Each structure stands twice: as structure tokens, then as C-alpha cells.
């Protein structure tokens, strides 16, 4: 679980130092144009939904660049580093 004492309903902003999207950062290189559009972009606001019962990873709700509601699990260490409380 994230080290920070985050609770369901808490809001965060994804803030990557190199302005990389979540998928881009995981891959380590730019995504295709189609996947970039669907990526979680730097600056995206998310709401902590809950912690996954199996992995313990936080589930966050967010809206992607095409306006669709999404739920994504975030690596806890990554969450601590790059998701800033708002």
C-alpha cells in the first residue's frame, strides 16, 4: 500500500517530472498516437477509489483525454512518487 495515509475519496494530481504519461513511463518510450490519446497524461486529476484486495495497489478513478471515465491500478511506489495530494 502507498506509504501516505490516503483514503478513498482523496484527490491527487499525476505529476511526472518528465511530463510522461503513465503508460509512456511504464514503457520507457513514447507510445503510438492512439495509445498516447488514451494514456493518463501528466496533470491528470484522480480520485482514490479503494485499494485492490489482491495486490494492494490503489485503484484511482480519472477521466481520459477523450472524456471517458477510467479506473486504473497504480504501482504503490509510483503512486507515492508521482501523485500529489490536492
Amino acid at each position, binding site marked *: 500500500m502507498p506509504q501516505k495515509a490516503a483514503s478513498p475519496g482523496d484527490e491527487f494530481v499525476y505529476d511526472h517530472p518528465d511530463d510522461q504519461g503513465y*503508460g509512456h513511463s511504464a*514503457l520507457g518510450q513514447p507510445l503510438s498516437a492512439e495509445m498516447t490519446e488514451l494514456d493518463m497524461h501528466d496533470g491528470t486529476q484522480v480520485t482514490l477509489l479503494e485499494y*485492490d484486495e*489482491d495486490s494492494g495497489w490503489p485503484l484511482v478513478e480519472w477521466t481520459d483525454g477523450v472524456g471517458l471515465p477510467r*479506473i486504473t491500478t497504480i504501482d504503490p511506489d509510483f503512486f507515492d512518487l508521482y501523485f500529489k495530494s490536492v
Partner: protein
Amino acid sequence: MPALSAGQLMQYGQNQAMNAVFRKAQSPAIGSVYMALSTTAVGALQSTDLTMAGASIGEYATASGYARQVYGPVNATAASPSLIYNTGQITWGPFTSAPGTCVWGICCDAASGTTANAIAAFLLASTRTPAIGDSLQAAAGTGAAGVGFICQV
């Protein structure tokens, strides 16, 4: 993945529906249901699996960016057979590790956890194997066969 087969209610869904329409039990309260992705081979998914802990469920691992998505269906159509389908596109990911090949969508009643009840299963018209960084998107239903996650009774 624009084309998906018609969905089939799992045992839990069949039981809930029958008890509701024959007034043997109160239906569950209005709320969200969620679409999971499963790697179970065609022919191996057992409709008798009551929860997402079922031996044949084979859901993607969550330590990958994957999470169940809100299904968001229409009201069941006033027709026979009655249909229900997703109103909007559904997108999973982006994936931070390769989750394997998905074969099924499985609708259940919780965002995470194996205690979620398995409601219905939808065989994908073609399997998908997302790579790291990818998002996986399903078409919105229209009521037409083969478009979106359609369930009928």
C-alpha cells in the same frame, strides 16, 4: 474490439433474476457493476462459478495497471428477447506490464476483490493481448448484434 458475442448470465445472475421477477427476493439495490477481463480459454469458463474467486474465472492480475471498469448499461430493452448493453466505450489500462491475452469480459458487482459476484460472461469476438503502455478499448453497444457487451435472456 468492436465485435463481441452475446452475453450469458452466470449462475449468480440467473438466480438473482429469477428470484426477482418471481418475487421470491428483493433485487439488489441500484448501483454500479463492473467489467473484468479474463484469460480463460473458450470452453473452459464455468457458468457455475459464483464469484470472481471461481477456479475458471482467470481474471487479469491487478498489479499491471489493470482494473475492472464500470459497465454502465442501458435499461433492459422492452423487447423479447430483452437486451442490455454498455452505453459507452469501455477502456482498460494503461498497462504497466503485459497482462496476457484476454478472451472474455466478465461482469461482476465490485470494483475489486475475488468476493465479487460473477453476473454475466461475454466472449470476445477476437482475443486481445495488450502490451506495456497500451490501453484496451471496447466499443459502445448499440443493440445490434456483435457491437459492445450485449447480454440477453
